[in-house]
């Protein structure tokens, strides 16, 4: 029996987080299947996306159905960087697909990608900057809840169409498949190796722990208050739109990193990464795993994507139905997802003092700001 729910114990949480990532770090030691390492690395990328959704939706209360924008832009940036590594200013200054589209000269927006450092910087900066601008416009105008979700979805569709229709610059529906792996300072990142797995896992673990730390700071407390009653927080002197924009942009930055890692691992990007259904899957991972828990969301992504690849082969046609049904079940009966199930499970182990068990909580005072 515990005095209070161990689920809420800060030390216990840190121990679980560290153990979880520590255990995952040993996977390449146990297996040297290069194909599996690559596949697990992509799961790590999905984990990053789930983390970003958990931060934005679970922690910040901002339902974002357009996370594919930041993911896709990051991925395109990385794909362009890798593509240009295979080009030569003298002999072949232009990617082959451009020649097929009879483009005469390397488009201006491709120029910075000659330089790997600049390329990666742009791959991360552009999506983040987009989130800062779009977020500022939306949150200043106090767009929130389902309205923001719809706007983010509309934005996603707009980006999808732009990329699809800019055939000469993006190779349209075929996307970009850089011919060689990313090499940084002479070191080539082999996408079929333990290294890529460790790289993705390291980034995922580092970002998760940093976000976890931030949620325990004063910033975290203010965001909790914003989620409970954003109207009231304004009168304490905090700019709610600023806080919302920061969360949205940090979440977008994480998704951009995920996009970069994705292309390093699969050497491919296409408008499919900005498909509406993919962005909605991200929300489903977090919803099922437990959006209020960073780790829960990540595990949700692992479970669902893992299930999709291993069970999906047999159930291919019914997989989406199973997933949809499961999601509805979770939303209806487990609003805090599987992590919430664990929370209430551990709550049963708490020894309640007799007095507290008898008397119900006092009258609930306080309401949203009304007058």
């Amino acid at each position, binding site marked *: 029996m515990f005095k209070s729910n161990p689920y809420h114990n800060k030390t216990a949480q840190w121990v679980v987080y560290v153990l979880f990532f520590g255990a995952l770090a040993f996977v390449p030691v146990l297996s040297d299947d290069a194909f599996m390492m690559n596949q697990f690395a992509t799961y790590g990328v999905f984990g990053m996306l789930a983390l970003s959704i958990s931060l934005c939706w679970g922690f910040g209360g901002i339902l974002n159905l357009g996370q594919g924008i930041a993911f896709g832009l990051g991925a395109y940036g990385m794909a362009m960087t890798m593509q240009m590594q295979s080009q030569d200013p003298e002999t072949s200054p232009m990617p082959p697909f451009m020649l097929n589209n009879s483009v005469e000269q390397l488009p201006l927006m491709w120029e910075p990608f000659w330089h790997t450092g600049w390329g990666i910087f742009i791959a991360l900066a552009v999506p983040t900057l987009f989130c800062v601008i779009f977020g500022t416009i939306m949150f200043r105008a106090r767009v929130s809840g389902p309205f923001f979700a719809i706007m983010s979805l509309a934005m996603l569709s707009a980006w999808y169409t732009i990329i699809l229709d800019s055939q000469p610059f993006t190779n349209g529906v075929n996307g970009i498949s850089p011919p060689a792996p990313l090499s940084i300072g002479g070191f080539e990142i082999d996408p079929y190796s333990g290294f890529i797995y460790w790289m993705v896992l390291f980034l995922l673990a580092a970002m998760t722990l940093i976000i976890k730390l931030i949620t325990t700071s004063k910033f975290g*407390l203010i965001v909790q208050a914003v989620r409970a009653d954003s109207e009231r927080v304004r*009168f304490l002197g905090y700019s709610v739109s600023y806080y919302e924009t920061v969360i949205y942009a940090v979440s977008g930055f994480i998704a951009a990193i995920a996009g970069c890692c994705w292309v390093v691992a699969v050497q491919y990007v296409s408008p499919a990464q900005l498909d509406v259904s993919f962005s909605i899957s991200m929300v489903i991972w977090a919803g099922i795993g437990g959006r209020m828990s960073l780790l829960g969301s990540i595990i949700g992504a692992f479970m669902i994507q893992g299930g999709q690849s291993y069970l999906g082969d047999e159930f291919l046609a019914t997989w989406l139905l199973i997933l949809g049904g499961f999601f509805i079940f979770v939303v209806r009966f487990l609003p805090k997802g599987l992590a919430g199930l664990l929370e209430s499970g551990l709550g049963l182990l708490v020894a309640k003092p007799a007095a507290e068990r008898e008397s119900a909580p*006092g009258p609930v005072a*306080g309401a949203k*700001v009304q007058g």
Partner: protein
Amino acid sequence: MGILEIHNLSKDYSGTVVLNDFSLDVVELTLCCLLGPNGAGKTTTMDMITGRQKPSSGRILLNDNDITGLDEHEIARRGIGRKFQVPAVFKDLTVRQNLEVAYSRQTSPFKNMFRFRDPGMERKLDEVATQVGLTQRLAIEAGTLSHGETQWLEIGMVLMQDPQILLMDEPAAGMTEQEIDKTSRMFNELKKTKTLVVVEHDMAFVREIADVVTVMHMGAHLATGSIDQIEANARVREVYLGSEEH
């Protein structure tokens, strides 16, 4: 010259006039009570001062600076704190967390990301918790407080902000006799260092705390004076006849 001056404030909601050329001067380190029957426009006046609503016309000056039409958080940062008529505390957070959030000297999200322990805040929190008598209740969820305690918590939150001017919308509503006594002692202590504007219907409470009383009626200024002058005022009596409260 008041620390807070309201000049000819008007507000109408698509034709319905709620405030009509209302002016008010609040003198530093005094407690001004704002009275008026239901619907007189007291809460609306506070909405205008704190930026929750934008006036149709008129100006609001704080320390001779025009603050009309600024955003809520900008006005709060300039030193105006507000307690709402329906107590607005964060029910899911603990009493301590409610007070911590309200300590808003540092409002930048990036700086607050690296703020885990804050000795200045701890000291202020101890002081305020003692002042509002919630030292024993810090660890519980704010949603489980009694009505009177919730009022005190919100007053405590305003104190954590450490504003120059405190706007209190019906702070004693729903309190027991003893709680009201305690609150009036608290306010009399507060006005030594702060300027307060208090909306209240309970005349005994007003008598205890008010330095000056202003009465509103149908969005307009009706009378200003000491509590005795106001109670003797024929027009005020007329307005309150039949609508007397408590």
